[in-house]
């Protein structure tokens, strides 16, 4: 049911926004818009279906946490 509602929502967004963008004849805008929308759709379906995908938050954690651990041990001890 959630997947159907999500699909209807995305169809509505595409039906409303894409024709306006195409009419503007700005190819770059159509491409960027479509790429970001597709990315949002992939993450939305994966979330609804319980599929884990690599996430920017995970990337931030992977980069920052080693530094965070070192600072924590240096300033506050392990506790």
């Amino acid at each position, binding site marked *: 049911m959630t997947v159907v509602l999500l699909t209807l929502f995305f169809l509505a967004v595409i039906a409303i926004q894409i024709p306006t*963008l195409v009419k503007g004849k700005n190819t770059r805008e159509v491409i960027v818009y479509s790429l970001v929308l597709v990315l*949002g759709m992939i993450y*939305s379906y994966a979330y609804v279906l319980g599929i884990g995908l690599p996430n920017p*938050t*995970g990337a931030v954690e992977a980069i920052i946490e080693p530094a965070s651990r070192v600072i924590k041990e240096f300033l*506050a*001890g392990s506790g």
Partner: protein
Amino acid sequence: MKAGEHISRWEATAYIVSIILTTSILFVPSITTRWAGRDAWASLALALAFGLLVALVSSALASRFPNETVVEYAPKLLGKLLGKIVGFSYAFYFYFTAYFILRQFADLMSSTYLVQTPDWVHVVILIIIACYTLYQGIEALARANSLVLLPLLATFVLMFLITAPGMRVDNLFPLLEQPLGKITYGAIPPASWLSECAVILMLVPFIKDKKNINLVTSYAVIIVFFIMLLVTLGTIGQFGPGVTSQLVFPTFSLAMSTTLRADSVFMAVWVAGMTFKLITFFFAGTLAFTRLLGLSSYRTLIMPGAILITVLSQNSWTDIMDEIRFSEETYPLFIIYINFILTSVLLLFSLRRKQI
């Protein structure tokens, strides 16, 4: 923001106060007290010094390019490729903060007030308001923010005064009981939140009077510091450092402890503040990506951007404890890296360029 839209210096200061205060105030008393104990005030003093440093660095950089955003001048300073990477880092940071705000908003709402309402309802309502505002332009938002800020600040002062008779002064003594290392570690989260004043790098083109931009950011940092200090001293005085460090939403607990039920007033102004913060970072991120990708209008990215940050706000953290751990261990260093280190590098390159 639409072309020709401008905000005054006071509106810019109020804007920065709102965006730092609304999320920092949620967690700072407990996170800081966990490490600094009753010496949390000392951590906040260190955070103030750092916040003022970031205010000066970011204002100095913004003043050198008063009509451009950081995403536009980064390639001029660092070269095209490196400049674009740095520009992308800022753009990502703004979007990242936007979806973190969405999640924090949903968590507080669903764990304290509207406990029967699913998380996603809070998120969707807030994101719809954000999209609508961005489509309309945000000059009116800056005006509304200036009006809401005074009740917001008054609520915190009032909350402190109302709870003052119940506070135990001995909860705050002895002074400087904790080692300097723990006090410094406790200073990192509030310092990182104060570093959000670097959003001036995106706002400066829209400020009418661009003289002494450093005063806009410095006043904002000082105002937020005083409110953080009031709330932290209030919660420690009321509950003691041990209990304060364990509270999930200490400021909210302080508001609930008053006989006048100040929590409802706190909630009313806090929701408005969160909305402003979300819109500001969503706007900054959308504008940054628009300039980075050479698009003609930021409006193109509003709807797909909103969908993306909505879903990322939901799938990034497993539960509220995961989010608090992230707020304590990862988020502060990440935003210090963007707001202070990257900004300082850009300032150094701009100084060097001037010398050449």
